[in-house]
């Protein structure tokens, strides 16, 4: 499955990355080679194989429903690049 420049451009929006024309060209080539390399997996017959998403076979891990202290607001907001006394701030989200 060849990866086109248009594919890469579409993915860059999905991934929320702004890529310049030169970067798009370079990535189209690089990603194309990696994707071609990964294609070797299709050699394997895996119809009957169950996927393995977790390396550790654990199930049913729960925590009790007990409230614990939250962060003080100043500490919660301390890393925000833009904030006021109460909230994080972003460009208007109307109509997004």
């Amino acid at each position: 499955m060849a990866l086109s420049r248009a594919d890469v451009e579409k993915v860059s929006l999905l991934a929320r990355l702004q890529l310049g024309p030169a970067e798009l060209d370079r990535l189209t080539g690089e990603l194309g080679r990696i994707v071609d390399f990964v294609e070797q997996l299709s050699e394997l017959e895996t119809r009957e194989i169950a996927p393995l998403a977790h390396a550790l076979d654990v199930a049913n891990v729960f925590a009790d429903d007990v409230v614990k202290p939250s962060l003080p607001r100043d500490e919660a907001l301390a890393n925000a690049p833009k904030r006021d006394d109460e909230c994080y701030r972003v460009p208007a989200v109307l109509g997004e």
Partner: protein
Amino acid sequence: MGSVSTSATRLRDDLAAGRISSVEATRACLDRIHQVDGRVQAFLRVDAEGAMAAAADVDRRRSQGLPVGLLAGVPIALKDILCTRGQPTTCGSKMLERFVPPYDATVVRKLREADAVILGKVNLDEFAMGGSTENSAYFPTRNPWDLERVPGGSSGGSAACVAAEMAPWSIGTDTGGSIRQPAALCGITGLKPTYGRVSRFGLVAFASSLDQAGPMTHSAEDAALLLEAIAGHDPLDATSADVPAPRYTAELDKPLDGLRLGLVRDHYGAGLSSEVEAAVREAVRIFESLGARTVDISLPHSKYGIATYYVIAPCEASSNLARYDGVHFGYRTDEPSMLAELEAERRAALASSGDSARAEAAVAAIDSPLVRLYRRTRAEGFGPEVKRRVMLGTYALSAGYYDAYYLKALKVRRLIRNDYDAAFENVDLIIGPTTPAAAYRLGEKANDPLAMYLEDLYTVTANLAGVPGISIPCGSTAAGLPIGLQLQAPAFQESRLLRAAHRFQRVTDWHLRRPDLS
């Protein structure tokens, strides 16, 4: 300096016996950092003040006869991907240049509870993506054995600071070999524990189903002690194993008689350097001389390990790194210039097209301010390798490709694990090279991502299967570069790994060699 550099275990015993104070040991590390880190560049940040205060506190408590922890007074360096409360945690990324976590990772908390003295945070490939530490947004770290060569990665800073004797040991993390490979290239011991053995809480995620933190030390004995301090179940990590952690140090000297070592046929093929192969074969002979038996085994799907890994890890990464969008923490692009850029694009769209319908469509295609904020923030905050993997993972998960790539990779992952399960029916440990070759030159593979990925050939399968692996020094190239031997064990058999490595280190001295940085 002697007791600081040779063994953390001995340093701990010397501290306990009062032969040296923690302030002295910490001072010695800070002096050494001052002396050589200008050349090695392992540390992103040295917390001299905090370290000295912690050391003085341990000394005071010890002198007052108060109880102290397992690692009391022993200095340590942390890969800068473990959250440290109130101390910047950058992940080697511009994105997190000013990020100060309000909490400690569980590993860090355990180290503090054990009274370890944290010297500072060491360099890594950005978000642990890479094998050379050249992908750090700040500077590349050098291999102490040859400053023109890479220390490996992504835990290159962790490996280099131990090899260069700036810290007696350190913590690294391993997603596809990021502890074992730099340990091999820097001539130290590096252990990737079983997935779930060490809590991931506070370890900034690269690929959540593969990441594990582990010890990077001079010896297996030290690795056992450090693992003992950080291993164990953590209710804050749902993927942490609820399996009791043994006292690894107490099991080190159990005999090895009858140990069955699996030699992986598939490991000795094209790409393996003859010097590495010779050193590994010699190590196997030493194990045989110690009473081990070797068995030829096959991991038939291991050749698909790289392809599988380079689907699963980027897919998880693309999602794990979505949170770096300039809203709640981390870097944000300059908004006025972003808005100016959008305005310029709007004008250009209106001007370039004669009819109004087409102009309108062109304007509609321009990102909204919020989308552009995200895209510029991420374009400016991430380096090329991170972008590459985020793009790759986003593509592989996107509509129409999921089954062909991600789901397929999960299935092959199961086949790889089945290979291990079958192999461990017949052998106790698997033995082989850690890397195909010794350290390469800085910049040598920087322009060929795929070549860089192929370096992980021998290490990624342990992460995919979740089993533990250790790399120990087993030789040296003609040019004097260290060579690493990898041992792998069934899940939760770290004791067996450490015991074998310890026995080997009792009859060899590769782990005692130090680079000359004078």
